Protein backbone atom coordinates (compact mmCIF):
# COMPACT_ATOMS: atom_id res chain seq x y z
CA UNK A 1 0.00 0.00 0.00
CA UNK A 2 2.94 2.31 0.57
CA UNK A 3 3.26 5.01 -2.08
CA UNK A 4 0.12 3.70 -3.78
CA UNK A 5 -1.77 5.96 -6.17
CA UNK A 6 -4.82 5.52 -3.96
CA UNK A 7 -3.05 7.35 -1.18
CA UNK A 8 -5.03 10.19 0.35
CA UNK A 9 -4.46 13.83 -0.43
CA UNK A 10 -3.00 14.59 2.95
CA UNK A 11 -1.85 18.10 3.85
CA UNK A 12 1.56 18.63 2.32
CA UNK A 13 4.63 18.44 4.47
CA UNK A 14 5.81 21.93 5.24
CA UNK A 15 8.90 22.66 3.22
CA UNK A 16 12.18 23.35 5.02
CA UNK A 17 12.78 27.01 4.44
CA UNK A 18 14.46 29.69 6.48
CA UNK A 19 11.98 30.27 9.26
CA UNK A 20 11.38 34.02 9.44
CA UNK A 21 8.19 35.01 11.33
CA UNK A 22 6.50 35.83 8.02
CA UNK A 23 7.38 32.44 6.53
CA UNK A 24 6.19 30.68 9.69
CA UNK A 25 2.88 32.57 9.63
CA UNK A 26 2.37 31.81 5.94
CA UNK A 27 3.16 28.14 6.52
CA UNK A 28 0.75 27.94 9.47
CA UNK A 29 -2.02 29.59 7.43
CA UNK A 30 -1.43 27.21 4.51
CA UNK A 31 -1.53 24.19 6.81
CA UNK A 32 -4.69 25.45 8.48
CA UNK A 33 -6.40 25.77 5.07
CA UNK A 34 -5.29 22.26 4.06
CA UNK A 35 -6.47 20.72 7.34
CA UNK A 36 -9.76 22.63 7.10
CA UNK A 37 -10.46 21.46 3.54
CA UNK A 38 -9.64 17.85 4.37
CA UNK A 39 -11.74 17.81 7.54
CA UNK A 40 -14.70 19.42 5.74
CA UNK A 41 -14.49 16.68 3.10
CA UNK A 42 -14.36 14.06 5.87
CA UNK A 43 -17.40 15.39 7.70
CA UNK A 44 -19.36 15.67 4.43
CA UNK A 45 -18.61 12.19 3.16
CA UNK A 46 -17.92 9.92 6.14
CA UNK A 47 -20.77 8.84 8.46
CA UNK A 48 -18.76 8.89 11.68
CA UNK A 49 -19.66 6.97 14.81
CA UNK A 50 -17.88 7.40 18.11
CA UNK A 51 -16.92 5.05 20.93
CA UNK A 52 -15.09 5.70 24.17
CA UNK A 53 -13.52 3.55 26.84
CA UNK A 54 -11.20 3.94 29.80
CA UNK A 55 -7.95 2.00 29.63
CA UNK A 56 -6.33 0.76 32.83
CA UNK A 57 -2.64 1.66 32.51
CA UNK A 58 -1.38 0.31 35.82
CA UNK A 59 0.42 -2.68 34.35
CA UNK A 60 1.74 -0.77 31.35
CA UNK A 61 3.13 2.18 33.31
CA UNK A 62 4.60 0.04 36.11
CA UNK A 63 6.43 -2.00 33.49
CA UNK A 64 7.58 1.14 31.65
CA UNK A 65 8.90 2.79 34.82
CA UNK A 66 10.87 -0.32 35.62
CA UNK A 67 12.36 -0.40 32.12
CA UNK A 68 13.12 3.35 32.12
CA UNK A 69 14.82 3.27 35.52
CA UNK A 70 17.86 1.50 34.10
CA UNK A 71 18.14 3.50 30.89
CA UNK A 72 19.80 6.73 29.77
CA UNK A 73 17.42 9.48 28.66
CA UNK A 74 17.92 8.78 24.98
CA UNK A 75 16.59 5.22 25.33
CA UNK A 76 13.62 5.85 27.61
CA UNK A 77 10.06 5.10 26.59
CA UNK A 78 7.02 7.38 26.94
CA UNK A 79 3.47 6.09 27.52
CA UNK A 80 2.53 7.13 23.98
CA UNK A 81 4.90 4.51 22.55
CA UNK A 82 3.10 1.70 24.39
CA UNK A 83 -0.31 3.05 23.43
CA UNK A 84 0.68 3.39 19.77
CA UNK A 85 2.02 -0.15 19.63
CA UNK A 86 -1.17 -1.50 21.19
CA UNK A 87 -3.25 0.45 18.66
CA UNK A 88 -1.17 -0.90 15.76
CA UNK A 89 -1.59 -4.51 16.93
CA UNK A 90 -5.31 -4.00 17.49
CA UNK A 91 -5.66 -2.49 14.00
CA UNK A 92 -4.12 -5.63 12.55
CA UNK A 93 -6.59 -7.76 14.51
CA UNK A 94 -9.63 -5.71 13.46
CA UNK A 95 -9.14 -5.05 9.73
CA UNK A 96 -12.33 -2.96 9.40
CA UNK A 97 -10.55 0.02 10.96
CA UNK A 98 -7.37 -0.24 8.90
CA UNK A 99 -7.39 0.71 5.23
CA UNK A 100 -8.96 3.06 2.69
CA UNK A 101 -12.49 3.72 1.49
CA UNK A 102 -12.27 4.72 -2.16
CA UNK A 103 -14.62 4.55 -5.16
CA UNK A 104 -17.49 3.26 -3.08
CA UNK A 105 -15.63 0.30 -1.57
CA UNK A 106 -13.45 -0.46 1.41
CA UNK A 107 -9.99 -1.83 0.79
CA UNK A 108 -8.46 -3.19 3.96
CA UNK A 109 -4.70 -2.86 4.26
CA UNK A 110 -2.51 -5.84 5.09
CA UNK A 111 0.10 -3.48 6.52
CA UNK A 112 -0.51 -1.13 9.44
CA UNK A 113 0.95 2.31 8.67
CA UNK A 114 0.10 4.20 11.82
CA UNK A 115 -0.49 7.91 11.27
CA UNK A 116 0.51 10.00 14.26
CA UNK A 117 -1.12 13.42 14.52
CA UNK A 118 1.60 15.92 15.42
CA UNK A 119 0.71 19.48 16.35
CA UNK A 120 3.24 22.03 15.19
CA UNK A 121 4.35 24.69 17.66
CA UNK A 122 3.64 27.52 15.23
CA UNK A 123 0.13 26.17 14.62
CA UNK A 124 -1.32 23.51 12.37
CA UNK A 125 -1.24 19.76 12.34
CA UNK A 126 0.37 17.00 10.30
CA UNK A 127 -0.15 13.25 10.58
CA UNK A 128 2.80 11.34 9.09
CA UNK A 129 3.00 7.55 9.28
CA UNK A 130 5.11 5.09 11.21
CA UNK A 131 5.32 2.34 8.61
CA UNK A 132 4.52 -1.25 9.60
CA UNK A 133 4.09 -0.11 13.19
CA UNK A 134 2.56 -3.46 14.22
CA UNK A 135 5.81 -5.26 13.40
CA UNK A 136 8.22 -2.91 15.20
CA UNK A 137 9.65 -3.60 18.64
CA UNK A 138 8.73 -0.97 21.24
CA UNK A 139 12.24 0.47 21.21
CA UNK A 140 12.27 0.82 17.44
CA UNK A 141 8.78 2.31 17.45
CA UNK A 142 9.85 4.78 20.15
CA UNK A 143 12.92 5.80 18.15
CA UNK A 144 10.83 6.25 15.01
CA UNK A 145 8.25 8.27 16.91
CA UNK A 146 10.90 10.65 18.22
CA UNK A 147 12.46 10.94 14.78
CA UNK A 148 9.12 11.49 13.06
CA UNK A 149 7.88 14.14 15.49
CA UNK A 150 11.25 15.90 15.39
CA UNK A 151 11.23 16.02 11.61
CA UNK A 152 7.56 17.00 11.43
CA UNK A 153 8.28 20.00 13.63
CA UNK A 154 11.37 20.91 11.63
CA UNK A 155 9.38 20.68 8.37
CA UNK A 156 11.43 17.74 7.08
CA UNK A 157 8.94 15.01 6.26
CA UNK A 158 9.06 12.93 3.12
CA UNK A 159 5.99 12.98 0.93
CA UNK A 160 5.38 9.23 1.29
CA UNK A 161 5.22 9.56 5.06
CA UNK A 162 2.48 12.17 4.76
CA UNK A 163 0.44 10.26 2.24
CA UNK A 164 -0.06 6.71 3.32
CA UNK A 165 -1.24 6.13 6.90
CA UNK A 166 -3.87 3.38 7.03
CA UNK A 167 -5.24 4.53 10.41
CA UNK A 168 -4.37 7.60 12.50
CA UNK A 169 -3.89 8.17 16.22
CA UNK A 170 -4.14 11.57 17.87
CA UNK A 171 -2.49 11.89 21.23
CA UNK A 172 -3.80 15.32 22.15
CA UNK A 173 -4.06 14.28 25.77
CA UNK A 174 -0.34 14.64 26.17
CA UNK A 175 -0.96 18.34 26.71
CA UNK A 176 -4.12 18.36 28.71
CA UNK A 177 -7.58 17.14 27.75
CA UNK A 178 -9.01 13.92 29.08
CA UNK A 179 -10.60 12.77 25.87
CA UNK A 180 -10.58 13.64 22.18
CA UNK A 181 -13.09 12.56 19.53
CA UNK A 182 -11.31 13.09 16.24
CA UNK A 183 -12.29 13.57 12.62
CA UNK A 184 -11.24 10.76 10.29
CA UNK A 185 -8.62 11.58 7.63
CA UNK A 186 -10.21 10.46 4.35
CA UNK A 187 -9.88 7.99 2.74
CA UNK A 188 -8.93 6.31 6.03
CA UNK A 189 -11.82 4.80 7.96
CA UNK A 190 -10.87 5.26 11.61
CA UNK A 191 -9.15 7.61 13.99
CA UNK A 192 -8.09 6.79 17.54
CA UNK A 193 -8.04 9.56 20.17
CA UNK A 194 -5.92 9.25 23.30
CA UNK A 195 -6.46 11.55 26.25
CA UNK A 196 -4.28 12.53 29.18
CA UNK A 197 -3.05 9.92 31.61
CA UNK A 198 -4.90 10.61 34.87
CA UNK A 199 -5.13 8.92 38.25
CA UNK A 200 -8.63 7.56 38.71
CA UNK A 201 -10.50 5.80 41.47
CA UNK A 202 -11.02 2.27 40.24
CA UNK A 203 -13.40 -0.34 41.64
CA UNK A 204 -12.15 -3.89 41.18
CA UNK A 205 -13.43 -7.07 42.87
CA UNK A 206 -15.41 -4.95 45.33
CA UNK A 207 -12.38 -2.88 46.35
CA UNK A 208 -11.63 0.72 45.53
CA UNK A 209 -8.13 1.66 44.44
CA UNK A 210 -6.33 4.34 42.44
CA UNK A 211 -4.92 3.61 39.00
CA UNK A 212 -3.43 5.55 36.13
CA UNK A 213 -5.89 5.50 33.27
CA UNK A 214 -6.41 7.04 29.88
CA UNK A 215 -9.57 7.60 27.85
CA UNK A 216 -9.28 6.06 24.40
CA UNK A 217 -11.84 6.90 21.75
CA UNK A 218 -12.51 5.54 18.31
CA UNK A 219 -14.08 7.52 15.50
CA UNK A 220 -14.93 5.10 12.72
CA UNK A 221 -16.70 4.98 9.37
CA UNK A 222 -20.21 3.45 9.41
CA UNK A 223 -19.90 2.51 5.75
CA UNK A 224 -17.25 0.01 6.78
CA UNK A 225 -17.89 -1.05 10.37
CA UNK A 226 -20.35 -0.71 13.19
CA UNK A 227 -20.12 -0.27 16.94
CA UNK A 228 -19.60 -3.95 17.59
CA UNK A 229 -16.39 -4.18 15.54
CA UNK A 230 -15.30 -0.79 16.81
CA UNK A 231 -15.73 -2.03 20.38
CA UNK A 232 -13.65 -5.05 19.50
CA UNK A 233 -10.81 -2.74 18.49
CA UNK A 234 -10.85 -0.77 21.76
CA UNK A 235 -11.19 -3.98 23.79
CA UNK A 236 -8.10 -5.37 22.01
CA UNK A 237 -6.11 -2.25 22.87
CA UNK A 238 -7.08 -2.63 26.52
CA UNK A 239 -6.19 -6.31 26.56
CA UNK A 240 -2.80 -5.76 24.93
CA UNK A 241 -1.87 -3.13 27.50
CA UNK A 242 -2.33 -5.64 30.32
CA UNK A 243 0.72 -7.56 29.07
CA UNK A 244 3.12 -4.70 28.22
CA UNK A 245 6.18 -6.95 28.13
CA UNK A 246 4.67 -8.64 25.08
CA UNK A 247 4.09 -5.42 23.16
Amino acid at each position, binding site marked *: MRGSSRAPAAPRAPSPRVMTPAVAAERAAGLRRAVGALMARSKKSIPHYYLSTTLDLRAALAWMEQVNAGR*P*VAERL*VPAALLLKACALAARAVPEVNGFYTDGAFRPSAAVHLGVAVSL*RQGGLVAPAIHDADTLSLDVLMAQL*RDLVGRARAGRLARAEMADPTITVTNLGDLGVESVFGVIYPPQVALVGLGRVVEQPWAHNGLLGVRPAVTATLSADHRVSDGLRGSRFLAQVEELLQAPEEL
Partner: protein
Amino acid sequence: MNEQDARAAVYAAIGQVAPDVDTDDLDENARLRQDLELDSLDFLRLIETIAQATGVDTPARDYPRVATVKGLVGYVQAHG
Protein backbone atom coordinates in the same frame (compact mmCIF):
# COMPACT_ATOMS: atom_id res chain seq x y z
CA MET B 1 27.36 23.98 39.35
CA ASN B 2 26.40 27.57 40.13
CA GLU B 3 22.92 28.86 39.51
CA GLN B 4 23.95 31.05 36.60
CA ASP B 5 25.47 28.15 34.65
CA ALA B 6 22.51 25.93 35.44
CA ARG B 7 20.12 28.60 34.22
CA ALA B 8 22.14 29.13 31.03
CA ALA B 9 22.09 25.39 30.26
CA VAL B 10 18.35 25.12 30.88
CA TYR B 11 17.54 28.20 28.81
CA ALA B 12 19.74 27.03 25.94
CA ALA B 13 17.98 23.65 25.95
CA ILE B 14 14.53 25.27 26.00
CA GLY B 15 15.63 27.45 23.09
CA GLN B 16 16.55 24.33 21.13
CA VAL B 17 13.44 22.29 21.86
CA ALA B 18 10.93 25.16 21.72
CA PRO B 19 12.45 27.93 19.59
CA ASP B 20 9.24 29.96 19.79
CA VAL B 21 9.60 30.43 23.56
CA ASP B 22 11.15 33.81 24.38
CA THR B 23 13.81 32.90 26.95
CA ASP B 24 14.70 36.57 27.52
CA ASP B 25 11.34 37.08 29.13
CA LEU B 26 10.69 33.75 30.78
CA ASP B 27 8.66 33.39 33.97
CA GLU B 28 10.59 30.80 35.97
CA ASN B 29 7.39 29.56 37.58
CA ALA B 30 6.21 28.48 34.12
CA ARG B 31 5.30 24.79 33.97
CA LEU B 32 7.02 22.97 31.14
CA ARG B 33 3.93 21.09 29.96
CA GLN B 34 0.99 23.35 30.65
CA ASP B 35 2.61 26.76 30.10
CA LEU B 36 5.45 26.11 27.65
CA GLU B 37 3.40 23.38 25.93
CA LEU B 38 6.18 20.80 25.84
CA ASP B 39 4.73 17.36 25.19
CA SER B 40 6.30 14.16 26.52
CA LEU B 41 8.67 13.86 23.56
CA ASP B 42 9.73 17.53 23.84
CA PHE B 43 10.36 16.97 27.54
CA LEU B 44 12.52 13.94 26.83
CA ARG B 45 14.53 15.92 24.29
CA LEU B 46 14.89 18.76 26.77
CA ILE B 47 16.41 16.64 29.53
CA GLU B 48 18.53 14.80 26.97
CA THR B 49 19.91 18.12 25.68
CA ILE B 50 20.65 19.21 29.25
CA ALA B 51 22.33 15.87 29.99
CA GLN B 52 24.60 16.26 26.96
CA ALA B 53 25.54 19.82 27.91
CA THR B 54 25.98 19.40 31.66
CA GLY B 55 26.25 15.68 32.40
CA VAL B 56 23.19 15.94 34.66
CA ASP B 57 21.02 12.87 34.15
CA THR B 58 17.44 13.19 35.36
CA PRO B 59 16.11 9.73 36.26
CA ALA B 60 12.45 9.15 35.53
CA ARG B 61 11.58 9.10 39.26
CA ASP B 62 12.70 12.75 39.50
CA TYR B 63 10.45 14.01 36.68
CA PRO B 64 7.95 15.57 39.13
CA ARG B 65 10.77 17.70 40.61
CA VAL B 66 11.57 19.27 37.26
CA ALA B 67 8.07 20.19 36.16
CA THR B 68 8.76 23.95 36.15
CA VAL B 69 11.60 26.06 34.75
CA LYS B 70 12.62 26.96 38.30
CA GLY B 71 12.55 23.33 39.40
CA LEU B 72 14.70 22.32 36.46
CA VAL B 73 17.28 25.08 37.07
CA GLY B 74 17.45 24.08 40.75
CA TYR B 75 17.84 20.41 39.86
CA VAL B 76 20.65 21.03 37.39
CA GLN B 77 22.37 23.33 39.90
CA ALA B 78 22.15 20.70 42.66
CA HIS B 79 23.31 17.77 40.52
CA GLY B 80 25.79 19.40 38.15
